[in-house]
């Protein structure tokens, strides 16, 4: 190749410079856009929202008499809950004469967008979760208090449920629809066939898992690819060993992860871990359920909402599926506490038609409304006191019994604490599962404590 005059060089370098710029642009956009996009959407949507909420006052005033129309933001995007929600909405329309339009969003998307959703132009009502996860948004002023609704529906609920619907300021911000317990599932046929009995204490449990292992079963099916399932086990061990109050203190950053109580939780877990299915970090919980269904696993610890639905999806009869509450460890606390996540509805502070929305909430806060929802939802149970739900199956009936005499109900590891802290705990637990050596427990606690300090600080 012959060298051409300087003119070509000029053009060559200009072209390369342009190409270089394009490359720079492409690369810079990656971190820049990732970092800036969510903040810019939320700030721009909040500014647009302030104008819309300014104009909303007049419409809500006129709505009080006529019932009006509200939009209902729903994350019940899977077929079964979607159908159940449609039934609830149809009944609410009939009983309140408020016209309701449902705006369904995929549930992961809905949860990911919640911050900008509530600050932007939210629907008049939205689906959400009880406890800290609701209190956080209430404390930021993004939810409207609904004490007047609770004046009317308060008698339908127990004090335990009421406290989960209140913000930290003591006002109500939430109306529940159902909850479901986290319990130990097993195949009844396996237990009868092999002569196993339901364990009541930790010692019983250890005897059982050893027996199962020698019988060629995986004692505990275990799947943690989604990272939240293992939080359930952390919660229940913490509540069984250290009690409900300590668990909530830890979740609320009022106790330290370096406490000996937390060491006890992980030490106990390490004892059980050899009897739990290996490879949990790469397995989704649906596949874990399959192992239980196939009778390769003896037990599995999960929410009824998840296991039941999966069991039936795979065409198995429910008759063989049974569950029991996690065995007692510390006799002081016995089996008094449980994780039972409760779902329900919030009224965003920026809702346009609050009066009509409150009428709908009043209807939803009744046993009849819960029954109309649960007619199509076969895995959750009503939270209203004495709700009559004739459509309960065996799992739902057993869930009601399991939760009848509890002294405290936690929501779930990722619902009871700040989301970044839940993520940090999930990450630490995954590492612990891969390497449960006792020497690693103390450093893990120290790391969790210093992350908690940074997250809550």
């Amino acid at each position, binding site marked *: 190749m012959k060298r051409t005059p300087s*003119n*070509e*060089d000029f053009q060559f*370098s200009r072209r*390369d*410079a342009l190409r*270089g710029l*394009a*490359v*720079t*642009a*492409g*690369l*810079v*956009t*990656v*971190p*820049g*856009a*990732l*970092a*800036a996009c*969510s*903040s*810019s959407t*939320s700030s721009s949507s909040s500014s647009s929202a302030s104008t819309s909420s300014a104009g909303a006052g007049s419409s809500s005033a006129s709505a009080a008499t006529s019932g009006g129309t509200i939009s209902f933001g729903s994350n019940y995007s899977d077929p079964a809950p979607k159908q159940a929600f449609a039934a609830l909405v149809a009944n609410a329309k009939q009983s309140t004469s408020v016209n309701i339009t449902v705006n369904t969003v995929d549930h992961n998307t809905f*949860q*990911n967008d919640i*911050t*900008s959703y509530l*600050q932007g132009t939210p629907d008049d009502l939205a689906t959400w979760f009880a406890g800290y*996860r609701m209190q*956080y948004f209430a404390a*930021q002023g993004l939810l409207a208090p609904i004490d007047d609704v609770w004046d009317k529906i308060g008698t339908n609920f127990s004090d335990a449920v009421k406290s989960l619907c209140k913000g930290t300021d003591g006002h109500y911000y939430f109306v529940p629809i159902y909850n479901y317990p986290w319990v130990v599932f097993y195949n009844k046929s396996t237990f009868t066939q092999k002569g196993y009995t339901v364990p009541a204490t930790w010692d019983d449990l250890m005897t059982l898992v050893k027996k199962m292992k020698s019988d060629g079963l995986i004692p505990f099916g275990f799947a943690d*690819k989604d*990272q939240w399932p293992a939080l359930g086990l952390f919660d229940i061990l913490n509540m069984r060993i250290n009690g409900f109050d300590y668990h909530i203190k830890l979740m*609320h*950053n009022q106790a330290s992860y370096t406490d000996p109580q937390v060491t006890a939780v992980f030490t106990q877990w390490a004892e059980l871990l050899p009897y739990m299915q*290996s*490879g*949990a*970090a*790469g*397995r989704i919980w649906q*596949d874990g359920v399959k192992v239980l269904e196939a009778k390769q696993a003896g037990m599995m610890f999960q929410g009824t909402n998840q296991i039941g639905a999966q069991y039936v999806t795979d065409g198995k009869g429910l008759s063989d599926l049974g569950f029991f509450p996690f065995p007692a460890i510390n006799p002081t606390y016995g089996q008094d506490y449980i994780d039972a996540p409760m779902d329900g509805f919030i009224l965003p502070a920026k809702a346009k038609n609050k009066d009509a929305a409150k009428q709908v909430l009043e209807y939803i806060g009744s046993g009849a409304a819960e029954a109309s929802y649960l007619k199509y939802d076969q895995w959750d149970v009503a939270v209203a006191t004495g709700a009559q739900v004739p459509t309960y199956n065996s799992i739902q009936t057993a869930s009601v019994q399991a939760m009848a005499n509890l002294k405290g109900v936690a929501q779930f590891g990722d619902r009871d604490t*700040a*989301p*970044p802290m839940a993520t940090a705990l*999930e*990450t630490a637990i*995954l*590492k612990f599962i*891969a390497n449960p050596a006792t020497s690693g427990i103390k450093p893990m606690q120290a*790391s969790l404590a210093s*992350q908690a*300090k*940074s*997250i*809550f*600080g």
Partner: protein
Amino acid sequence: MTHDVTRRAPSRREKQAPAGRRRRSGRRFSRRDILVVAAMLAIPVLGDIAFIWGPAVVSIALSLFKWSGIGGLHARNCIAGGLFPDNGCFTGLGNYHEAATNYPPFWPAVQHNLIWLGVFVFIATPLGMFFAVLIDTGLRGSRVYQTVLFLPVMLSLALIGIIWEFFYSPNYGLINTVTGHNTNANLIDWLGDPSLNLWAVLVEASWRQAGYVMVLYLAGLKAVDANLKEAARIDGANAWQTFWRVTFPSMMPMNIVVAVVTVIESLRAFDLVYITNKGTNGLELLSALVTSNIVGETSRIGFGSAIGVVLLVISLVPISAFLYQMFVRKEAR
């Protein structure tokens, strides 16, 4: 951009001389010319500032705050000990300090980004070049091979992640079933074992990257004058010598494109790890940490921005090196 270069490479040489003469003859610009030039410069510059430098600068500013995305930013310092994390307060370089000292996924992420780059530079890209050279020799059925190897490039990375999950799934996956590792006693947890999963995902990524590089390189090879190779053969060079001494040097512009594509593809790696497990448990990448902190309820926007800025700085290293090379080499000539 890349196709531009390959297509125009031969024509550039032909048109150079007349273009140069024309430019030299028209020295003076009319008012209209100046306006046109100004507009043509201003629009891209404004776009550049609005969509690239603006967000980048905002990210840098946000990285100095602790912010959940709710409410405004304040100049006050953060207060610890509340039930809810403090919000909208100034932490200065606190986020960077936290990331480096008190955020377990950070250093693994940096390491994984470097491993990713290394695998692309030393394995995936050379493999793609090798495929291209093989296919370019015109071996029988080369079109079939070309199609097969290019197929992954036509799939989105998200889809590739999902397809490979079927191969890697521990109890029901193809690989474990075929090799008999699907019983719980000898299970290989390809995507869950933190010491294995990065390599498993790099296989997925290389599967696509090799095809991508192959197509780019094949286009370059087609443009190489066949006479050069023939001359080398007549001079007694073997295939290895012909490639390294004749073909490779004559493809310098394409080599640079491939190098740049390789670096970009490895720094922007995100889709596969996000699909696999959202970039956790052995698959941490800086890009995944940015999203996991910013998107969703976690909402540590300041902290996520700080990690984004770190990624920006890392990206600037190869970019600067590349630009420096380009400009300095041309000026020195």
